[in-house]
């Protein structure tokens, strides 16, 4: 008798990991977000008509654009960090600093992009 080893998604997300655990979670969300976005985008163009129009309407919404841009930009920059640290294990000594640098690159780029998306949406 005993309880199974299963770890639920909520138990996993409640684990209080370091900053890198957050980037790990966001990397998954970003990768999945982009995958679903591309799949549905292809589907929308394929079916066309009213249904395709509704889907394209969602994509043209500025809030959605901010979300998908977050996915793409974060995934790309974080993916780059992972790749560099994988290729040069000695740099793993500085993994905390690497994540600080990553945020320092991400936040201004994302901030400017959000500004552009929102001001375009407001007809600026």
């Amino acid at each position, binding site marked *: 008798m005993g309880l199974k080893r299963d770890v639920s998604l909520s138990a996993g997300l409640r*684990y209080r*990991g370091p900053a*890198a*655990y957050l980037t790990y979670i966001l990397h998954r969300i970003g990768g999945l977000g982009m995958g679903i976005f591309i799949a549905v985008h292809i589907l929308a163009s394929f079916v066309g008509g009213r249904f395709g129009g509704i889907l394209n309407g969602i994509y043209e919404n500025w809030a959605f654009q901010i979300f998908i841009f977050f996915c793409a930009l974060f995934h790309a920059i974080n993916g780059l960090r992972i790749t560099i640290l994988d290729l040069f294990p000695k740099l793993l000594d500085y993994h905390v600093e690497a994540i600080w640098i990553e945020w320092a690159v991400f936040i201004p780029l994302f901030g400017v992009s959000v500004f552009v998306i929102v001001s375009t949406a407001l007809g600026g």
Partner: protein
Amino acid sequence: MEVTIKIFRYNPEKDQRGNYVTYKVEAHENDRVLDVLEYIKGKIDGALSFRRSCAHGVCGSDAMRINGRNMLACKVLIRDVGANITVEPILGLPIKKDLIVDMEPFFDNYKKVLPYFINDSPLPADGRERLQSPEERARFDETTKCILCAACTTSCPSYWANGEYYGPAAIVNAHRFIFDSRDEAADQRLQILAETDGIARCHTAYNCTEACPREIKVTKAIGEVKMAIMTGKLD
């Protein structure tokens, strides 16, 4: 000070699932979480079950989730975790009772990486030691410090998702022998770790490095093994 401690309880003879029981006890800020558990077991509920042996961070038997993060109960002070404490079993291993998990799957994975010295060459001419320079010894010094507490492996999201993954602790112990200049089975171990459930399952979440009570740079050790597999070189 008064400490409120919420402990995961599960009795396999009675319960279908686990539940939490909250205790309020007096403790000193310099007490360890293990002292509080011992107090509850001694004075309030003798049925409370948890593993501990050395009580000094050496034997590796009391890894548990304290306030959501893997730690050794004997190595963490009340003042470091505050007056509101939640104690739960480590994740990803079957729970036998309260805070006691079944460690067999953990040790099965550990055994897969041949975690022992292998050298079938004849002894040196004088029939004594196989010598090693201080630099060669230093190469794997860090990974000799592992006490097999499982804090790293059970903090790893890849291991939660898939118990077949050998896990950080097994790779740390493989590292200890792979980079030992006297050992001759590095290739064999690297081959084992190149399999699907080996290093490929590491996605560098770093939970392991943060959890290790021996401050072993676990992710770095895994990174060095990854590199050795990719390049076929040990440096």
